[in-house]
């Protein structure tokens, strides 16, 4: 069904492709961590593949399955032109949980990667703002890791800065548009 996708990737990445599975039309490609950025960029830019849409970036903790490497970063790509999907996975070891960012390929991966960092503690090298996105600033640990106690909470005493991503200039512009009497 999606043979041309796996063939294209095998042709271009050869040994960097660790494993390919096509389970009832769901194509999954395992790639060496060091080549994952190249492969993603190729998926987007190659005219035959044309995966213009990165639907999600997430991760899996294989701790309870005794996984080596422990984590996998997972990318779900979709092509509006061919209607094909591919799942790209890259193994990430526990002692060096770093992957190259894909923000320069799809800008939409910015928040996805922050979420993966927040939940699993996998860092994305080259990301413009590698910080937590869901948990608050006093949170410690990464809650979707299998060895994180499910109900361990961290209290936040003062409100987190929810607008710190907006540059000073941009904030100024937003403030100047607000016309509620309280804000003046």
């Amino acid at each position, binding site marked *: 069904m999606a043979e041309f996708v796996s063939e294209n990737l095998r042709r271009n990445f050869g040994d960097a492709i660790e494993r390919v599975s096509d389970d009832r039309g769901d194509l999954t490609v395992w790639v060496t961590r060091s080549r994952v950025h190249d492969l993603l960029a190729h998926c987007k830019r190659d005219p035959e593949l044309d995966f213009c849409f990165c639907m999600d970036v997430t991760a899996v903790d294989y701790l309870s399955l005794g996984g080596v490497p422990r984590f996998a970063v997972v990318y779900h790509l979709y092509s509006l032109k061919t209607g094909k999907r591919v799942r790209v996975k890259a193994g990430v070891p526990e002692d060096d949980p770093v992957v190259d960012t894909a923000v320069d390929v799809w800008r939409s991966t910015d928040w996805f990667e922050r979420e993966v960092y927040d939940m699993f503690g996998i860092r994305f090298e080259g990301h413009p703002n590698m910080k937590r996105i*869901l948990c*608050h600033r006093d*949170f410690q640990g990464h*809650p979707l890791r299998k060895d994180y106690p499910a*109900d361990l909470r961290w*209290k936040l005493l003062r409100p987190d800065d929810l607008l710190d991503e907006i540059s000073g200039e941009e904030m100024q512009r937003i403030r100047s548009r607000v016309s509620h009497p309280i804000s003046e």
Partner: protein
Amino acid sequence: MGLNASDPDAGRTEVAAAPAEGVFTTTLDKMVRWARAGSLWPLPFGTACCAIEFMSVVSSHYDLARFGAEVVRFSPRQSDMMIVAGTVVDKQAPILKLIYEQMCAPKWVISMGVCASSGGFYRAYHVMQGIDEVVPVDVYVPGCPPTPEGLIYAILKLQEKIERGDPSHWQVEAERRAADDRSQQLVGS
């Protein structure tokens, strides 16, 4: 009616006889409580589906105006009954506290639904296990979400509480703090 200056009960007789038709006597305290109970201004702190149910309570079908509590304000300065409707996560906790503190006393809090009351089914790393961790709650409403009747019942309960003159949690807190300050001063002197 004959007034007799030597009669010790004369004054009392006079007062009892004085009210004309349609006039009632009471105490100022009781009247203030009655007025407060009948003119609660809700501040919705809606974070989840309970807030949708709250909307139906204040809309025409369930019509909270019947109980004098329909003037929904979105500024804590103008409201005296906070209705926390929905899941409150740890990241939201200091914001909830800040808004509660901005309300003018006297003030009351209704915890609407199981999430606000106990964390509900979110026994997890990110949700407060009941908003009473940060704000004092007067009435808890069970349900996921509670029925509109459930919330109305809570408001009626709160009104009973106010009319009875039960101290609100903020009052108890304030008095405790004042007592602490006094004992601190005594220790200091």
